């Protein structure tokens, strides 16, 4: 264990980088690009330090620091990671350099762009490592602002509409959460925002339910759960590539992460009470997102709806009360970040070449750009959960975990896997297969080395998680188990509790 | 029925009458003159209440200086013809009159119901001050001691007002002489001067 506070360095390094970029000369756009790339790579390197220092065997949070910030108001700077947030942090730092690479061709105000991107990274890392609710809320809102500008200034088409929608949706949700946080603050004796202090606060179950709904409003919008999802297709579609990647890869996970880090532990009774509702919403999301994705005409929109479906799996796994579901859900977050991130990058590359995202404008690309289409197919397969690739492990564990406690819900949820094949393969067919009908499609270039450089790490990880998820699961499991026990004190992580076990029978009644 | 009562009564009628006459005067010059009458009437009420210095100011500054300024501007702009009495804004007049009536009723109500809250020291205290050290000196003492800072602030206000007026009334041609398109380097934007 090293003495360096890797985690805190990782959180604030991008912010420092953003300031640095702000002071770079405006005339040289390349400087800003390289600075952003170097800073994000350095952050990734620092986060590797976090990963190395992380002791899988230790319970609870580690590697963080604690300092009083505003004493009179009970606000502290408390950070730390457990097996869940560790991977979220890693995912963020990993995707960020790729996002910078994907933005290499941003021509308009590159300085501001990259500074905002880096500020976004600090916000995201802060969200995943804060253990003080004030700090958490601060970082939570910090992510909102850069994203708003990234969509609103560097987006496409209806970017203003999309940015406003994104902003308002999330803000409405998070204001409700703020109210709940404030309530918690005053309910905690002595008044404190620290998660540990708040966890010690006893609340009546009626109060818990209201507060849970306050948190849930914020997180459900962010995840997003149907029917709070309609900001997502617009935001994803209009955002610049890196924005879409970050949005799908990390920002959505903040919602799911918030649910399991705050909503469940703080209000376990309420969480239990709302489990049927949330499972229903998640399952509806899986099927609904997939069904809607089938008929989308815009590639990015299609992927956005696939995110709705995939995040449905994540939330489903978190609330079924089995460690399989929980771990699977968390792994699915990582997987989804990788495969959907890759998909958005690929669509971004297509857009750079053809300046369109309409599926109908393509066709027969498999012949003109074989390598690109091969990579695309590979990522599509990962997204539809082909065993051996990353998507399968998470989905399988989520569905298994669901089945163990709620056997009927698994039927529509598992059918989502079939639907995923339908919408993605149909889209693949329309874009890459068939004859080349448009002259413009015949002339486009295959992937270049920069694009290969940014896709290769993703592809390697997609296979790695699919084939050997053990390093991930070994770190996730203990943390997941703790959350499961918070949700259901009777749960036993070492047992498979199933339909033949008597306990589950009672629950099914 | 003392003399003071009588004087007040006359002043009351003159002040209100000339104010009302202002409202109905179609000529701006007439309105200005009615305002002068009202101000003089007010000066009388000041005198009645022992505010001699203020009464003098009222006559000199208001009725004298400010009203002359008004008349000067009226003449300068040549708007001393009769104003049209048509009201283009619907509901403006009834609204104004209605609200005015309400306001008057409320003020009268408050005055007569709430006068006791203030407490009446009677005119004796002022009379005593006017006798010793005298009204002007007493006012000056208060003004230059307790109200020194606001007093100095008013000087700033006046300076700013003077500068503002100069900026506002400067003619466009004065500026245009300084900055013509020909003098500027090619491609530089011609600065719009708002007047």
């Amino acid at each position: 264990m090293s003495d360096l506070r890797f985690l805190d360095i990782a959180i604030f390094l991008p912010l420092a980088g953003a300031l640095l970029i702000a002071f770079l000369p405006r005339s040289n756009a390349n400087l800003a690009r390289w600075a952003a790339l170097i800073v994000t790579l350095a952050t990734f390197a620092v986060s590797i330090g976090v990963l190395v220092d992380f002791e899988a065997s230790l319970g609870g949070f580690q590697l963080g620091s604690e300092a009083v910030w505003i004493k009179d108001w009970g606000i502290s700077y408390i950070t730390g990671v457990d097996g869940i947030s560790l991977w979220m942090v890693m995912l963020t730092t990993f995707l960020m350099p790729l996002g910078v690479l994907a933005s290499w061709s941003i021509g308009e105000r590159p300085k501001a762009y990259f500074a905002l991107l880096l500020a976004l990274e600090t916000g995201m890392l802060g969200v995943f490592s804060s253990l003080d609710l004030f700090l958490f809320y601060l970082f939570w809102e910090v992510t909102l602002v850069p994203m708003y500008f990234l969509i609103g200034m560097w987006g496409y088409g209806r970017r203003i509409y999309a940015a406003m929608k994104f902003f308002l949706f999330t803000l409405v949700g998070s204001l409700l959460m703020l109210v709940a946080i404030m309530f918690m603050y005053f309910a905690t004796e002595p008044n404190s925002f620290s998660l540990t202090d708040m966890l010690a606060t006893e609340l009546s179950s009626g109060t818990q339910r209201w507060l849970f709904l306050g948190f849930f409003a914020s997180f459900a919008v962010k995840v997003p759960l149907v029917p709070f999802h309609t900001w997502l297709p617009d935001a994803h579609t209009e955002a610049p590539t890196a924005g879409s990647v970050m949005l799908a890869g990390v920002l959505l996970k903040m919602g799911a992460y918030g649910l399991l880090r705050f909503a469940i532990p703080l209000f376990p009774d309420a969480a239990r009470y709302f489990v049927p509702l949330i499972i229903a919403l998640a399952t509806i999301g899986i099927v609904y997102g997939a069904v809607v994705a089938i008929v989308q005409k815009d590639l990015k929109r299609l992927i956005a709806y696939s995110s709705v479906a995939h995040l449905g799996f994540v939330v489903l796994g978190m609330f079924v009360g089995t460690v399989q579901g929980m771990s699977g859900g968390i792994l699915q977050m990582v997987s989804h970040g990788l495969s959907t991130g890759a998909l958005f990058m690929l669509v971004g590359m297509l857009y750079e070449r053809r300046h369109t995202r309409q599926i109908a404008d393509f066709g027969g690309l498999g012949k003109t750009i074989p390598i690109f289409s091969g990579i695309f197919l590979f990522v599509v397969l990962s997204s539809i959960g082909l065993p051996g690739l990353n998507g399968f492990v998470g989905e399988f564990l989520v569905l298994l975990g669901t089945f163990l406690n709620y056997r009927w819900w698994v039927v529509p949820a598992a059918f989502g896997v079939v639907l995923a094949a339908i919408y993605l393969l149909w889209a693949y067919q329309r874009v890459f297969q068939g004859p080349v009908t448009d002259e413009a499609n015949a002339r486009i270039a295959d992937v270049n080395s920069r694009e290969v450089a940014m896709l290769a790490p993703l592809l390697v990880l997609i296979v790695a998680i699919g084939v050997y998820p053990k390093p991930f699961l070994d770190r996730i499991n203990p943390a997941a188990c703790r959350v499961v026990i918070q949700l259901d004190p009777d749960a036993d992580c070492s047992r498979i509790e199933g339909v033949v076990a008597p306990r589950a029978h009672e629950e099914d009644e | 029925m003392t003399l003071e009562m009588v004087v007040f009564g006359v002043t009351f009628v003159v002040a209100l009458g000339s104010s009302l006459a202002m409202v109905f005067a179609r000529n701006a010059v007439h309105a200005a003159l009615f305002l002068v009458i009202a101000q003089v009437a007010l000066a009388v009420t000041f005198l009645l209440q022992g505010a001699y210095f203020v009464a003098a100011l009222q006559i000199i500054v208001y009725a004298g200086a400010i009203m002359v300024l008004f008349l000067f501007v009226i003449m300068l702009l040549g708007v001393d013809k009769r104003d049209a009495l048509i009201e283009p804004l619907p509901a403006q007049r009834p609204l104004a009159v209605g609200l005015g009536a309400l306001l008057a009723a409320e003020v009268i109500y408050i005055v007569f119901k709430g006068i006791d809250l203030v407490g009446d020291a009677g005119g004796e205290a002022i009379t005593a001050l006017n006798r010793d050290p005298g009204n002007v000196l007493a006012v000056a003492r208060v003004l230059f001691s307790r109200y020194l800072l606001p007093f100095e602030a008013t000087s700033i206000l006046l300076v700013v007002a003077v500068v503002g007026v100069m900026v506002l009334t400067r003619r466009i041609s004065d500026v245009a002489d300084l900055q013509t398109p020909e003098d500027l380097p090619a491609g530089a934007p011609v600065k719009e001067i708002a007047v």
Partner: protein
Amino acid sequence: MSEVPPGFYLALAGLMFTIGAVGALVRRNAIVIFMFVELMLNAVNLAFVTFARMRGNLDGQVLVFFVLVVAAAEVVVGLAIIVSIFRRRASADVDDVNLLKW
């Protein structure tokens, strides 16, 4: 000294203030509107003087002094604005200046 109750003076001030307000609303000539504003300020001055008498100190009279200064500054600036507008539009009608809306 005085037999006239202060309420009468205040009532006079209130009525004059009201007339000034109504006049400012119904007239369209900017200069006349300014006159009504002056009238309202004068009414307030009367109230100040009356309050000074009621309270038996000179603070009210000093405030009249300040009102006077403000009125002077306001008139000067206001009239300058009117002159500027008149130069542009050849009109002192406030209803002609209505572009700043919606």
